[in-house]
C-alpha cells in the first residue's frame, strides 16, 4: 500500500541518477562549506587572523621561499630573545608543509598564487574535504542520505567554522579533515580486516601527528575502540590485523616528527595504544593456542598465562614509570580531568581564554538543533551496534566530556554531533518520506470513513490520539527503517510499522524542513557575526550604519617595522609575540609558543613592578621598545589592563616574595584603576604606560576609562625611565622606548627631574640637623 503513486524508473536509471545527484550534492556542499567561510574575506580582506596563525604564516613563508631543508633547520634568533627558538624541532610542520606543497604545485602549473592567499584559503578548502570525509564515514554508519546530511551539517556547523574561516590559518584547519579521514579509514580497515587500509589509516595518522598536537585524541580513541570491542567479546582477526597494522606503522611513522620524537614509547598519553596492542597480541596468541589444545588443559593454561603476563606487564609499566622512563601525564592532560588544576599549578595555561570550561549557551550557539538531535542519533546507534556504531558511541561520550571542560575542544565534538544528528534526522526523513503505508490495524477503532464535520470536538480528540499513535510509531519506524537499509533489503510489501496518511507526513516533514532552514540561518548568522572577525582588524559601526575599520594593530606594527632599527627588541605580553614577529618583523622576548614559563614571568614581573624595579630587568634583556594594548579610549575590552592579573599571577609563581596578587586589589578586594587603586597597581609599569597622558586627552575634565567604566585619578602617571614612542590612532596600541642610561651617570629619575627644572630634594640636611640637636 502506498500513499502516493510514484513514477517508476528502471533500476539502472535510478542508481545512475542517484550517483550523479550525490556527486552534485557533495560538490554543492563543499561549495557551501567554502563560501560560508569567506565572510571574513568579504567583510574585511584576505588577511591572516588572530595570533598563532601569524606564526604559521611566517613559517610557511620561510618554507615557500627557502625550501624545506632550510625550514627544517630554521633557528629563529628573534623569538624568545635572547634565547632564540629551534623552530624546526618545536612545531608540527604538517600545516606549513601542506601549504608549501600546494604553493609549489600551483606555481609549477604557472598559477602564481601568493603564499598569503594559499594560507588564507587553506582552511576553507580543507573544510570541503572534511565534508567529504564525514560523508564517507556516515555512509558506513547508515547510508548515503545520512552521509549527505552529515556532510552539510559539518560543512556549515559554527562549531567547526569557528576554527576554519578563511584566514584562520591554524593546525585545526587541516586537522579535522585528517581526524575524520583517519577514523573513516580505520572503520574501513576494521570492517574488511584489511592490512592495506590499516596501513593507510596509519599514513593519515602520521599526517595528523605532523599537523596537530590533538593527534593524541586519535592515539587514544582507536585503542579505546579496540579495547571496548574486546570487552564486548568481539575480538576478531579483522580487528587484530587492522589494529596491528595501524599501530605498528602509525607509531613508527609518528616518531619521525621531530617534535614528537620518542614520546609514543615514553609518555603516558601513548601507553594506552601500546597496552591495547600488547593485549591484542596476547588474545590472538591465546586464540591460536585454544584451537590446538583441549578445552580442560586450556582453562588451566590460560589462567596461569593470564596471571603471569598480567603481573609481568603491570610490573613493567610501574617499574618504567618509577624509573621515569615513561613520563607521567603532562599538566595539560591533568587539566582535562580537573578543571581547577591549571589555575592552581600552571596559570599560563589557564590564562588562555580558549582553555576555559565551556558555557552552556556555547553548545547551542555552535551546534544549534544538532545538539538535541545528537542524543537521538547516538541512541539509534545502539539499535544496531555494529563495530562502527560502537566507535561513534565512544567518540560521542569522550568528545562530549572534553568539550565540556575546554571551549577549544568543541571542535572535536562537532564532527560526531553532525554524524549522530544526521543519522537521527535521516531516519526520521526515511520514515516520513517513504510512500509505503502499513496495513491498517483492525483494533484502531477509528472509523476513517465517518462523515466529516458531524462532531467537531470529537474529531479533535481523535486527531490528538492519532498524533500520539503516530509519534510512538515514528520512533519504532525509524529503527525499523535503519535496520532495513542496513541489511539492504527491499521494503516488504506489508509493513507492520509505518505512517498513515499524507497529512501526518507533511506536518513532520514541514517541521523538519523548518528546522533545517532555521539551522542554516543560525549558522550563517553566527558565522558572519561572531566567527569572521580577524581580530587584527576591528570593525565598528558609525552612527550612520556604515562600517568603520579600526586598524590600530597594523598601524603600530607597521610603524615598528618601518621606523625602528631592524634589531630593536620589543617587549610585550606573550599574546602579541607572534603578531609582532609576523607584522613588525622585530625580535620579541616572549611569544605565543609559551614554552618558557620563567621568561614569561620575567616579562610579567617587569610589567607589574614599579619603574625602578623594572628598569634593570628591561636593560638586562636589551629591551628597546615596550608594546602594550590599551582599550580605555574606545572601549576595547581585550586590553592589557584586563589581562594584567594574569601577568601578576604568573610572575608571582616565580617570584612569590616580590609580586603578590592581593597587592593589586583594593582593600575591599576590588580590581580598580581609579583613585582607590592600590599603590602597587598605580606604580606598576603597566598602569603607568596605559594611562600616561591619558587625562590630558579630556582637557581638564576627569579622564574616563570606557572598558572598566571608572574615572581615573586627576593626576596622571609620570614616566622617568621610559618615554612614549608611538600611540596608534585610537590609542589601542601604545609603544614606549626604554631610555638608555644617563650619560652623566645619574639616576634617570634625577636626570628627568633636573630636565624638568625641579630642584633635587634636600634629603641629607635633615639628618644633619638632627645630629646637631643631639
Amino acid at each position, binding site marked *: 500500500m502506498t500513499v502516493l503513486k510514484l513514477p517508476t524508473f528502471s533500476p539502472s536509471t535510478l542508481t545512475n541518477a542517484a550517483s550523479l545527484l550525490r556527486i552534485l550534492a557533495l560538490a554543492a556542499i563543499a561549495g557551501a562549506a567554502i563560501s560560508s567561510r569567506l565572510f571574513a574575506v568579504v567583510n574585511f580582506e584576505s588577511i591572516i587572523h588572530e595570533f598563532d596563525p601569524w606564526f604559521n604564516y611566517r613559517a610557511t613563508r620561510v618554507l615557500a621561499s627557502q625550501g624545506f631543508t632550510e625550514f627544517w633547520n630554521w633557528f629563529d634568533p628573534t623569538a624568545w630573545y635572547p634565547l632564540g627558538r629551534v623552530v624546526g624541532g618545536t612545531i608540527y610542520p604538517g600545516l606549513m608543509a601542506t601549504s608549501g606543497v600546494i604553493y609549489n604545485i600551483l606555481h609549477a602549473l604557472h598559477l602564481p598564487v601568493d603564499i598569503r592567499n594559499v594560507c588564507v584559503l587553506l582552511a576553507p578548502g580543507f573544510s570541503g574535504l572534511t565534508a567529504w570525509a564525514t560523508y564517507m564515514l556516515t555512509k558506513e554508519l547508515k547510508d548515503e542520505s545520512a552521509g549527505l546530511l552529515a556532510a552539510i551539517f559539518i560543512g556549515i556547523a559554527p562549531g567547526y567554522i569557528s576554527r576554519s574561516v578563511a584566514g584562520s590559518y591554524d593546525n585545526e584547519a587541516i586537522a579535522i579533515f585528517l581526524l575524520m579521514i583517519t577514523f573513516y579509514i580505520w572503520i574501513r580497515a576494521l570492517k574488511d580486516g584489511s592490512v592495506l587500509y590499516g596501513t593507510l589509516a596509519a599514513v593519515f595518522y602520521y599526517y595528523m601527528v605532523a599537523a596537530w598536537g590533538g593527534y593524541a585524541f586519535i592515539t587514544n580513541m582507536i585503542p579505546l575502540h579496540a579495547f571496548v570491542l574486546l570487552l564486548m567479546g568481539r575480538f576478531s582477526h579483522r580487528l587484530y590485523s587492522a589494529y596491528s597494522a595501524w599501530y605498528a606503522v602509525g607509531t613508527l611513522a609518528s616518531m619521525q616528527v621531530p617534535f614528537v620524537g620518542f614520546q609514543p614509547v615514553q609518555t603516558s598519553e601513548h601507553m594506552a595504544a601500546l597496552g591495547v596492542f600488547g593485549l591484542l597480541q596476547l588474545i590472538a596468541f591465546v586464540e591460536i593456542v585454544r584451537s590446538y589444545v583441549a578445552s580442560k588443559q586450556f582453562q588451566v593454561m590460560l589462567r596461569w598465562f593470564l596471571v603471569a603476563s598480567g603481573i609481568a606487564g603491570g610490573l613493567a609499566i610501574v617499574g618504567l614509570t618509577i624509573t621515569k622512563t615513561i613520563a607521567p601525564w603532562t599538566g595539560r592532560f591533568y587539566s582535562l580531568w580537573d578543571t581547577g588544576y591549571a589555575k592552581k599549578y600552571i596559570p599560563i595555561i589557564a590564562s588562555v581564554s580558549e582553555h576555559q570550561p565551556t558555557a552552556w549557551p556555547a553548545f547551542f550557539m555552535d551546534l544549534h538543533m544538532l545538539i538535541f538531535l545528537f542524543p537521538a542519533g547516538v541512541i539509534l546507534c545502539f539499535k544496531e551496534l555494529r563495530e562502527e556504531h560502537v566507535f561513534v558511541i565512544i567518540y560521542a561520550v569522550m568528545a562530549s566530556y572534553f568539550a565540556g571542560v575546554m571551549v577549544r575542544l568543541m571542535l572535536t565534538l562537532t564532527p560526531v554531533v553532525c554524524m549522530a544528528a544526521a543519522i537521527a534526522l535521516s531516519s526520521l526523513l526515511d520514515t516520513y518520506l517513504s510512500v509505503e503505508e502499513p496495513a491498517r490495524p483492525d483494533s484502531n477503532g477509528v472509523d476513517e470513513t465517518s462523515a466529516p464535520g458531524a462532531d467537531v470536538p470529537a474529531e479533535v480528540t481523535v486527531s490528538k490520539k492519532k498524533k500520539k499513535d503516530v509519534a510512538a510509531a515514528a520512533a519504532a519506524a525509524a529503527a525499523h527503517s535503519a535496520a532495513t537499509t542496513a541489511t539492504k533489503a527491499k521494503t516488504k510489501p506489508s509493513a507492520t510499522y509505518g505512517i498513515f496518511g499524507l497529512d501526518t507526513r507533511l506536518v513532520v516533514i514541514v517541521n523538519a524542513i523548518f528546522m533545517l532552514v532555521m539551522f542554516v540561518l543560525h549558522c550563517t548568522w553566527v558565522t558572519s557575526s561572531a566567527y569572521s572577525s580577524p581580530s587584527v582588524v576591528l570593525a565598528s559601526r558609525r552612527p550612520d550604519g556604515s562600517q568603520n*575599520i579600526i*586598524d590600530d594593530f*597594523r598601524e603600530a606594527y607597521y610603524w615598528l617595522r618601518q621606523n625602528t632599527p631592524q634589531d630593536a627588541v620589543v617587549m610585550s605580553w606573550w599574546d602579541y609575540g607572534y603578531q609582532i614577529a609576523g607584522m613588525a618583523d622585530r625580535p620579541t622576548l616572549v611569544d605565543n609558543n609559551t614554552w618558557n614559563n620563567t621568561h614569561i614571568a620575567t616579562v610579567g614581573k617587569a610589567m607589574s613592578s614599579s619603574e625602578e624595579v623594572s628598569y634593570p630587568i628591561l636593560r638586562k634583556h636589551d629591551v628597546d621598545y615596550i608594546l602594550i594594548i590599551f582599550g580605555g579610549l574606545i572601549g576595547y575590552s581585550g586590553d592589557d589592563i584586563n589581562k594584567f592579573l594574569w601577568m601578576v599571577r604568573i610572575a608571582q609563581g616565580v617570584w612569590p616574595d616580590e609580586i603578590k596578587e592581593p597587592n593589586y586589589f583594593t582593600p575591599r578586594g576590588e580590581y580598580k584603576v581609579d583613585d582607590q587603586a592600590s599603590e602597587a597597581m598605580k606604580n606598576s609599569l603597566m598602569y603607568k604606560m596605559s594611562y600616561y*597622558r591619558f587625562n590630558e586627552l579630556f582637557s581638564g575634565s576627569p579622564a574616563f576609562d570606557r572598558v572598566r567604566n571608572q574615572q581615573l585619578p586627576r593626576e596622571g602617571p609620570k614616566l622617568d625611565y621610559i618615554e612614549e614612542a608611538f*600611540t596608534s590612532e585610537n590609542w589601542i596600541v601604545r609603544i614606549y622606548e626604554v631610555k638608555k642610561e644617563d650619560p652623566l651617570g645619574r639616576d634617570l629619575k634625577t636626570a628627568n627631574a633636573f630636565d624638568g627644572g625641579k630642584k633635587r630634594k634636600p634629603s641629607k640636611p635633615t639628618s644633619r640637623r638632627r645630629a646637631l640637636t643631639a
Partner: protein
Amino acid sequence: MRTQLHLLLLAAVAAAVDLWPTHQRIAPSFVNTDVVRTVELSSQAYVKASYSIESQSDVDNDVFYLTLSEEEENVTGWIEAKAKGATGGLEVKRLGQHAESLAYLYAIKLAKPLPKGESLTLLVDSVQSHATYPKPAFATQHDSHFRVYEADGIVLSPYETTSQRLRVKAPTPNVRSYHIPSALEALAKDEPAVKSGATVTFGPFKSQPPTATKDFDHKPYRVSIDFEMNIPALTVVSLKRTAEVSHWGANLNIQDEYVVRNDAPELKGQFSRLDFQMSQHARRMSPVIIPALSLQLPSGAHSVYYFDIVGNVSTSAFRPAPKAAGRAARLGPQNAQLDLKPRYPLMGGWNYTFTVGWDAPLGDSGRWDEVNGRWILAVPFLTPLPATPIDQADVRIILPEGATDITVHPPFDVALMERSTHITYLDTIGRPAFDFHAQKLTEKHDGFIYITYKVPTAAHLQKPLAVTVASLIIFSVMWTLKRVDMTIKK
C-alpha cells in the same frame, strides 16, 4: 632559460658620437650678455634661467654649451630649454663631465645657427631635487622647520658673461639668514644681496671671463639661504612599476610599489599622538607632517587596490573620474583621484612603503595600427606624486604571450633597459617583459614608453588551447583508470 638582452642606450650612442666636446676646448662662439637665474624653493628647487646670448662667430654657432658645477649636476634631475618667443623646446643633450674644467656639459641645439652679432634669449628650466637640507637636522612636532639652499653665486659657463643675477624665492618671507661670500661680494656691481619679501637677489655681478675652465674654482662663490619651510618634503626612495597588458581582457594593469620617506627634519624625541591629535583638532598641524597623499590616476582607472606588507590599508578613498558629459566632455578626460592615508602620519624622517594598483581599459593606452598590423602601446613611465623627487624607478612592461617584432621607445634616456621572460597565469612559454631602470627622476619624467609589437592569432589561442588539452588529458586518464579493473582477486 632567460635571455637577457642589454639594449644599447640612446645616451651611450650619443656619447660615443659626440665624444669630442668633452675633451676639447669649447670655442667662445657666444657671449652671455645677461644671465638671470630664478630659483623657486619648494619641496624641490625649480630653477628658471634665462641666458641672453650674442653670437661671436660664424662657425660653431649652432650649439650653445651649458655647464653645471658638480654640486648642481648632482641635484639636477630635469633640464629643458627653449628660445624665448619660440614655440617648442630645443634639444638638450647631456654630454657628461668636461675633461679639463671638470664641469658637466650640456649641449643645447639651437633651431638655426645664430649669425655673428645677433642675439637670442634662451630659457633653461631645471628641477633640482634634494637641493636643500634641514637645519637643524632635528625638530620636534611643533617646531618651525628651516632648510638651507646653496647655489653657485655665478654661473659656470664656457663663455664670457657680461652681467648676471641670481634670485632665490623662499616659500615664506621668513628667511632666517642668507650668506654671500666676500669673494663674490667683491664682484657685485652695487648692492651684493638684497632681500625683499620672500625673495633674495644676489647681484647683479660684474663681467666675468669664461668660468668653466681648469683654473676657475667655483667653490668660494657659493651663496646660501636659510629659510622656513612650510611645504612637506616627501621623497620617493624607490618606485617599482609593473604594467601588464592583456588582450583577452582588453586591460592594462599597472601596479606601483612605493618606498617613501618624509625628508623634513627628523623628529626630535618621540612622537606624541596626543599632541598630534590636539594640533589636528585645532588645525595647527605642522605643515611638514604628511597625513595623506593623493595620486592622480588615468581617467579610465578602475578596480583600484592599495595595500602594504601587512595587508590592505583601509583608509584610502578612490574618486573615479567624472563621467564625460556636457561641459566635462569638452574639457577632456579628467583624472581619477586616489586619496591615500598611510597607516600612520609621516613625521620627519619616517618611512612608509605601499603598493597601489589599478586596471584601465586597454583602449585608453593601446591602439591597433591597421597599416602595419601592429599594436602600439603607450605606458606612462610613472605617475608622479606632486612635487616629489623619485630617487630610483624600475619599470617593467609585460607584453602578451607570443608578442613578436617588438620595438621600444623610452621617453628619456634610461640608465639600463633589459629584456626578460615573465611567466604568469597559465602561461606556456612566458611573456616578453622589458625592464627600465632610471635614477634621479622628477615629476617631469612622466612621459610615455611607446612599445609596438605584433601578436599572431595563434598566440591569442595558445592559452585556451593549453588549458583544454590539459583538462582533456586529465579526463581521459581518469576515464581510463575508471575502466581498468585493478583487483587482484576475482
